[in-house]
């Protein structure tokens, strides 16, 4: 059974929503990222998105741009990130999605990437600038390896297009809740509800919502309308502020646990 599928199935049974956390790998260091991911797992986070830094992150806002720069300045690269995931897999079964831009993968070599990522225990990939029109050249390897191809749906995507994307996607669908780059605006729960309902008519895959959610409260507001929420910039900002400080990992994990609790509470209320 695939980890992502199993995670959503178990959440459904428990009537819980997924909390997905994004971190830029290598910020502040790869060792710290490893510690953070293990901590997030213990804190109850359901899936982690491991950001692969890129020099030109055109879909990201200032917070994640700065994280990518710190990570690259520290020497992080895709092969090392994959090795880190391999280490994590010795002790954790948390589903891991690699999140990034196409060029670092393309240069590593699509075939080699698929093989190494699978060996390391990567469950899914989300490549921001590789839409369905261009994804065949990578998916011929990653699909075969059994790596889920997580696809994005935007507020601007029309019905026909959503159908096409959903038809080819695997793992889960990621609805971009704002018309903008990461971490720069706050989604409206009502708009998200309408959008997710529209997507659900076209797919049975889980639908998660992200790009603009940063607080437990926002997460609790949005989550009931979807299968889960993704929070990135809020965590990345905390990492930027804490740097390599000792209390970084406990601080991040506490915040993640707070959000997970808020999601559960909302769920209980929603059912009651």
């Amino acid at each position, binding site marked *: 059974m695939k980890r992502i599928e199993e995670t959503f199935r178990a959440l459904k049974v428990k009537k819980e929503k997924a909390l997905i956390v994004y971190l830029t790998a290598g910020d502040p260091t790869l060792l710290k990222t490893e510690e953070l991911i293990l901590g997030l797992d213990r804190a109850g986070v359901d899936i982690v998105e491991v950001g692969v830094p*890129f*020099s*030109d*992150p*055109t*879909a*990201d*806002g200032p917070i994640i*741009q700065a994280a990518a*720069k710190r990570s*690259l300045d520290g020497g992080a*690269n*895709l*092969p090392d990130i994959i090795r880190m995931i391999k280490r994590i897999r010795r002790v954790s079964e948390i589903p891991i999605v690699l999140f990034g*831009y*196409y*060029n*670092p*993968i*393309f*240069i*590593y070599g699509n075939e080699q990437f698929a093989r190494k990522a699978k060996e390391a225990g990567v469950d899914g990939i989300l490549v*921001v*600038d*590789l*839409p369905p*029109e*261009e994804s065949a050249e990578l998916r011929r390897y990653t699909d075969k390896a059994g790596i889920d191809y997580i*696809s*994005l*749906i*935007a*507020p*601007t*995507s*029309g019905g026909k*297009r959503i159908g096409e*994307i959903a038809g080819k996607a695997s793992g889960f669908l990621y609805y*971009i809740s704002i*018309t*903008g*780059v990461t971490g*720069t*605006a706050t989604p409206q729960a009502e708009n998200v509800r309408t959008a997710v309902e529209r997507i659900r008519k076209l797919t049975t895959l889980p639908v998660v919502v992200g790009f603009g959610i940063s607080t437990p409260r926002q997460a609790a507001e949005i989550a009931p309308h979807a299968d889960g929420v993704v929070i990135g910039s809020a965590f990345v900002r905390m990492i930027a502020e804490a740097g390599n400080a000792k209390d970084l990992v406990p601080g991040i994990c506490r915040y993640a646990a707070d959000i997970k609790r808020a999601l559960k509470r909302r769920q209980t209320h929603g059912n009651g």
Partner: protein
Amino acid sequence: MGVFQQPVREGNTMQKLPDNKGHFGIFGGRYAAETLMPALIELEAAYRQAHKDKRFQKEFAAYLREYAGRETPLFYARRLTEKLGGAKIYLKREDLNHTGSHKINNTLGQALLARRMGKKRLIAETGAGQHGVATATVAALFGMECRIFMGEEDIRRQAPNVFRMKILGAEVVPVSSGTATLKDAMNEAMRQWVSRVRDTYYVIGTTAGPHPYPVMVRNFQSVIGRETKKQIRKMEGRLPDMLIACIGGGSNAMGIFYPFRNDRNVVLIGVEAAGRGITTGEHAASISSGRVGVLHGNKTYLLQDKNGQIHDAYSIAAGLDYPGVGPEHGYLHDTGRARYVAVKDSEAVDAFMALSRCEGIIPALESAHAVAYAMKIAPALDKKKIIIINLSGRGDKDAEVIVKRGEGK
């Protein structure tokens, strides 16, 4: 078959270029974030329609004629030719266009398209500021709001163009990420477009970016080559032996090359910026020393490290200071139809001075790269040979850079 997909003879096979997804062989395509995909599809449909619409083409031609001042002259550079003692050198005077460069050809076309699509707000990236000025100009002409993204380093070295954009009513947004040059300006323009995609039209200034930009910009710019062909036939009774153009993203080069693509005896030469020298690593020669990758919506030659991180480019000419190149140039390179060379800062500066003193024409530092290569090879060529240089822009904007280098005394 529309002009959108031109047959190109390749050995014995006919290929449509680009294909219907914007691929030139392995190059090009549409590697964009999902938020932008619907906008790109809408843009492509609008452009296809406009392209076939005689009224649109007529209006575009009228603006090129009455507003930009086309056609631009083809000028025989007699003194430069005599000084070099070899091939005859002609200059296609794109510097004489309104706003001082070829960029206006494309911005007029795209602004007309934006108006047709009901968009009232234009954004653009700019390096040397020529495309920014050309975009600010058409925004004023058509009463549109305009925002230009420009690297802080470029704002510093191309101050006159910043003043011009502001006078024209555009907002100039300084970009400080990376090396604060053209690549970073383009990143920021794309982010802005993602955030305001519903009411905003993104005017890309070169033959790069996601489909349909490379083909659209090429088609708007190909007026350069069509005129050149007609003019040289009239002046010399035949086609030239060689076309030389500078390459940043490659729009002026595509503009002059494209109508000659099937004239196999015309050698096409693209001149990249070798900056301080290819071996120093400080240059912008993507084809000469880069490798294929994906950036800014298309697959093409890029300057990058072994992990696929994009290098910062460097050139004395802000308009060439870009770590990539238009995908069709990648294709022309790989098929051998065009040849790509690189010229250093110092050679471009020498050519800048030579053309100024010899012909009374101050070229843009970008265009001076093409002049420099012509000066290198013309002496060894037979006097009957004809070289046409695309003089893509004028050099007023570069006066300060030249004076600071201690030239022009």
